[in-house]
């Protein structure tokens, strides 16, 4: 933290999410008001959504839907669990959840990093467009559905239909995969992929603790990229 950094505290038991977000949206790059501690989030929705400044927001407790939604630049740390759509459509920055995350974590996100300390429920990384997601636990069914770009790294297991209708995203799973979705296949784990995976370990602060060779890589077979009647059973 810089010497000039100011710390702010917001207690959501006596302030509103609107007041919090108004204050956070008013911050510009270069502001020294860069550390915000939020207490009593109580599962409220849209906490720290729409940020666009290099600040850090620490949330002490569970958050509801869309925490850190459409984030740019900011670091949002959730010391608890997160509801649906945490970091949805994030563009850049970091969102880290210490606990579990509900459905659609990191949905449609274009960039940045999402770290889930526990498990993520169904559709983690759905329609992801460039984000790097690391889930230290397991992910639910239909994760990385129609995933376009970015990486989803899962230390645990993946549920049914992983990567269904996937485009160019890369999926790394250490544990079991209950089933692969349409057009998603296991792919060779080459050195470049192990290097990429190692970079994801660094994002999650576990480099050197996990062996990349324990993971399998999954991606698109690219057989559904052009509509063809012979593929009708997959549609």
């Amino acid at each position, binding site marked *: 933290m810089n010497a000039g950094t100011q710390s702010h505290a917001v207690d959501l038991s006596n302030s509103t*999410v*609107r007041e919090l*977000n*108004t204050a956070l*949206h008013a911050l510009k790059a270069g502001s020294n008001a860069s550390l915000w501690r939020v207490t009593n989030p109580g599962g409220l*929705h*849209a906490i720290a*959504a*729409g940020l*666009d400044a290099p600040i850090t927001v620490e949330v002490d407790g569970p958050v*509801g*839907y*869309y925490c850190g*939604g*459409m984030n*740019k630049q900011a670091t949002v740390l959730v010391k608890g669990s997160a509801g*649906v*759509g945490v970091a*949805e*459509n994030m*563009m850049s920055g970091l969102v880290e959840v210490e606990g579990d995350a509900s*459905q*659609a974590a990191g*949905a*449609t996100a*274009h960039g940045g990093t999402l770290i889930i300390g526990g498990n993520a429920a169904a*559709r983690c990384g*759905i*329609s992801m*467009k*460039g984000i790097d997601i690391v889930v230290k636990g397991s992910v639910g069914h239909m994760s990385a*559905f*129609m995933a*376009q*770009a970015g990486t989803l790294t899962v230390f645990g297991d993946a549920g049914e239909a992983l990567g269904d*209708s996937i*485009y*160019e995203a890369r999926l790394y799973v250490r544990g079991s995969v209950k089933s692969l979705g349409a057009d998603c296949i296991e792919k060779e784990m080459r050195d470049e992929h192990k290097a990429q995976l190692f970079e994801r370990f660094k994002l999650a602060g576990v480099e050197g603790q996990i062996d990349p060779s324990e993971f399998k890589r999954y991606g698109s077979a690219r057989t559904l*990229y*052009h*509509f063809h*009647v012979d593929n009708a059973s997959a549609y």
Partner: protein
Amino acid sequence: MNEHMKPPAAPRTLPRESATFDAYTLSEIRRAAATGIYDIRGAGAKRKLPHFDDLLFLGASMSRYPLEGYREKCSTEVVLGTRFAKKPIELKIPITIAGMSFGSLSGPAKEALGRGASAMGTSTTTGDGGMTQEERGHSTKLVYQYLPSRYGMNPDDIRKADAIEVVVGQGAKPGGGGMLLGQKISPRVAKMRTLPEGIDQRSACRHPDWTGPDDLEIKIEELREITDWEKPIYVKVGAARPYYDTALAVKAGADVVVVDGMQGGTAATQEVFIENVGIPTLAAVRQAVKALQDLGMHRKVQLIVSGGIRNGADVAKALALGADAVAIGTAALIALGDNDPQWEGEYEKLGTRAGAYDDWHEGRDPAGITTQDPELMKRLDPVLAGRRLANYLAVMTLEAQTIARACGKSHVHNLEPEDLVALTIEAAAMAQVPLAGTDWIPGQTGRF
């Protein structure tokens, strides 16, 4: 036998074609048998449907006084988003341009839409594929669509928009997603959508991070938080269950509800979907209005109706039934130059004709509108096409004012169902206005 004694040939009946197996149906069966794949096309339902043509205005008479044309004012402005948004949209005319994507349309076509709409003081709408500089730069009021695919979605563009339209469905395909074929996924389109070039691109039919009206309420709350409660938030639904869909959109917190009937166009969908799913625009308006009235929200949450709006009479009829504004898509493309007879020779080479061309997804549009082909795109002059759209919008507005004055209204919003009668029982039942010459509203009051 003597030739004169030969029995006359038995009279033969004329060849009779089946009404059930008509020529179009036969051609479709043959096409399906040859290709093994369903027909995909653009535009909306082409079958004959009960429509605004089946309604008539009564005009002023002994009990109502008309306003003088060219002298007495008949206002047309409309304000959208007065429920929650800090910055509602103020339009000079009650006709907006519906969402159409860059990707489906060329950049110059989007620019032309912006130029024409802005000249008349109304809004345009983005589509699947994100916001382009062509449309933001030339649209004084731009509605940013929030679609299931979220292609090109980013918070900077949301903040640049004047309103946000959460698209739940569209009239041509309620419950359906989309498909943009590879030939239209140019390098620019691919980059905006984060997809490989040249692949067939699918647009999801459901939003990835919310399901149902309770979730939508939270999603709208998030969008309001991100935009600091400034932007009006529309919810667009394809006309299917308009009463409940409108009520649920209001419950979810919409400022504006957009109801799109089955004549509303699409860039590309299965023909069977377009023609067989959803209900006509005429059947949707009163149900949507009734939902607003039952909730005490009519005129507080604004209603935009779209799907087959073609002229000022359609505008006036939609408003008389309770809409606050209408949106046009297909008609706007025609005004730009789509399906123009000047390209007849080229339409014939594509196996169709001017007025019937609907393979917008193939990207070979002779008019240079529904294409990403650089050579075809050059055929559309965005300045000239924008002028044509502005002219067309001006005519529609003048027509609606003409009718409103004849009914004695000083604002087009003062038109009311009591100004209307229906030509058919179907239209009377759908619009809930009397059959002409009777006081009979099917399902309600009176008798023949």
